[in-house]
């Protein structure tokens, strides 16, 4: 078991930079999820850690050891591939035993460890089979088993759920979390699916265009996204964004959007740099736009008239696509809400839950809560 440290790690290709100056520390026993859209550098980061990709500059440490020039096989890591990468010509048992055999582990010890891992994953009946005789879910378990038997210092997982069907994915998510708790090993997990990140991670690293956007617990990322990208990426459906202008009305602040005005609570409004007439981007999550009839108690909201464009009933909830004076807005409301396309209804915006972003840079204008300090120096804010 070991911690993992990235120090100013960069991976440069002839025509682009896949990972740009990445620094982060992953504590021993953590379940860190690297998440971002495709091409954001998350897989490259994982592969550099695995030793499958060379590092252009910076250092990667596993425990106290710099591993930049250590061969993949000597890094004491195990990896679960998206395709599972099972050896098609070997039985499940041989697949799991291969790594131990190459490390000259005694035969009876190999057998003990394979049987133990198979028991954990419930794949004992499959040990004699070849990979092609297994279902997708079974293959995925074998791939996990192959990593478990190695008892590595760090466990790497590269989109291990993306080849499973939706139902199996939900089920396996919970099992992976349990497996992590049971093994206590450091897990580093790559996915493009923010739901996987939110549900399994102890901490999430959001990457975009090779740059680390934010590193924090799932709750921190959801409640205090550092910039517009993270705000839009985390949460489903995505956060609504619209442009507005801040106006000072005595001690209070107001947001003037085209066609409507929102009060800004003193505790929401960031003190720093937010002056009169600052242009901002306002973000509000769909779940914080209510049907006034079903507004949760103890929330403060502003009622606005809106036109219904489209409704999507999910059963347990309903998505309503709205038009508020030309600003499109998605609301995630109680399914009992009565709304038909074309109707004018009243919606309640929870003005305590709005997020403010610098219109030019996209950086959050919120004060950072304790423990969620920015990972790199925040860029200079544009003041007007």
């Amino acid at each position, binding site marked *: 078991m070991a911690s993992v440290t990235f120090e100013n790690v960069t991976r440069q290709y002839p025509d682009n930079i896949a990972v740009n100056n990445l620094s982060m520390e992953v504590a021993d026993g953590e379940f860190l999820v690297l998440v971002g859209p495709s091409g954001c550098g998350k897989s490259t980061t994982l592969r550099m850690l695995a*030793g*499958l*990709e*060379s*590092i252009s500059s910076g250092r990667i440490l596993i425990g106290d050891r710099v591993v*930049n*020039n*250590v*061969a*993949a096989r*000597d890094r004491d890591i195990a990896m679960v591939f998206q395709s599972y990468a099972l050896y098609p010509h070997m039985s499940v048992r041989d697949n799991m035993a291969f790594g131990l055999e190459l490390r000259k582990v005694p035969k009876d010890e190999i057998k003990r460890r394979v049987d133990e891992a198979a028991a954990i994953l419930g794949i004992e009946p499959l040990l004699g089979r070849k990979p092609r005789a297994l279902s997708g879910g079974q293959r995925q378990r074998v791939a996990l088993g192959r990593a478990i038997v190695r008892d590595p210092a760090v466990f790497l997982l590269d989109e291990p759920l993306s080849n499973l069907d939706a139902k199996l994915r939900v089920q396996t998510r919970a099992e992976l979390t349990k497996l992590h708790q049971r093994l206590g090993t450091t897990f580093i997990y790559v996915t493009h699916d923010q739901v996987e990140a939110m549900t399994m991670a102890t901490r999430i690293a959001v990457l975009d265009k090779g740059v680390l956007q934010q590193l924090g617990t799932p709750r921190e990322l959801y409640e205090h996204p550092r910039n517009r990208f993270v705000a839009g990426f985390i949460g489903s459906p995505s956060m609504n964004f619209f442009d507005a202008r801040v106006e000072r009305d005595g001690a209070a602040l107001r947001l003037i959007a085209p066609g409507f005005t929102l009060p800004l609570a003193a505790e929401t409004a960031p003190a720093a740099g937010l002056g009169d007439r600052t242009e901002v981007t306002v973000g509000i999550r769909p779940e914080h736009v209510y049907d006034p009839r079903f507004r949760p108690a103890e929330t403060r909201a502003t009622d606005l008239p809106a036109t219904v464009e489209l409704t999507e009933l999910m059963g347990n909830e309903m998505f309503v696509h709205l038009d508020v004076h030309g600003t499109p807005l998605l609301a995630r409301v109680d399914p009992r809400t009565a709304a038909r396309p074309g109707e004018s209804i009243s919606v309640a915006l929870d003005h305590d839950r709005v997020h403010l972003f610098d219109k030019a840079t996209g950086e959050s204008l919120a004060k950072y809560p304790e423990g969620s300090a920015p990972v790199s120096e925040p860029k200079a804010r544009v003041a007007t």
Partner: protein
Amino acid sequence: MAGRNPWTPWLWMSPAIILLTAFLVYPVIDTLRRSFLDARSNSWVGFDNYQFIIDNPQTLAANTHSALLNNALWLIAFPLLAVPLGLILAVLTSRVKYEAAAKAGIFIPMAISFVAAGVIWKFMFEFNANIGTVNAVTGGVGLDPTAWLQDRGGLQTWLTDAGPDQWWGPLQINNFALIFVATWMWTGFSLVVLSAGLKSISTEMLEAARVDGATEWQIFRRIIIPVLSPTIAVVTTTLVIQSLKVFDLVWVMSGGRFDTDVVATLFFKQSFIAGHFGIGAALAVVLLLAVVPVMVVSIRRFQFQEETR
């Protein structure tokens, strides 16, 4: 991958590099050098050997012009026979239930040696119509028997019994007889490759064309041929290289006599029988120069495939 010794790949490739250098790279360079030396490779003669090929001073012993023209005929006629035949067979066999058996029947000659094929076809071409199958068949329709591998006449001379006994240049019967044997051996290749290409065309695309109202001929002409054109190009290139390098078949069947020599057989005669290494080497260089453009096209296509892989 991090941590691999930079010499490792070269260690793995070294046996191959040594063999390729000894048997292909070095001989090519040495032949180039030798083509500027005299018969025994002793003294420098400049371009004399190439001049010999151009001037063609010994038409009896070494008719270089005839060999070059014959190769040109091979280059054109052989692919022109084997590719369309393979294409027709690929399309037709895909529509019959005994496809596998039919293909095997066409394909068998690929497996046997040029030597065996030479024996088979000497026997087929035997002049005596009581023994020779081909003359028995042509005799059956009222034509005179022909010495297929010796006859220098043209097709017209043979069919009408009128005209010159020696036809112009390469367009003589015996050359066509040899090219036909090569076609017999290689149509299987063109059939198998084109048939695989045909199978890779999605049936949905053909169904879409049928729904659009295309006739079977229009589908063949407007869909199958264009989609298959890269495969056709591959087959054609292979056959072109084969026809440039053709040696065994001519050597076994006619020995290059009666003006059937191609560059490769003439090279062989000059080098190993006449003992003139210089002219031999120059002929080999001519052969190589002819192959180079084909090679360049192949490599271009290969690079394109790598990029789109």
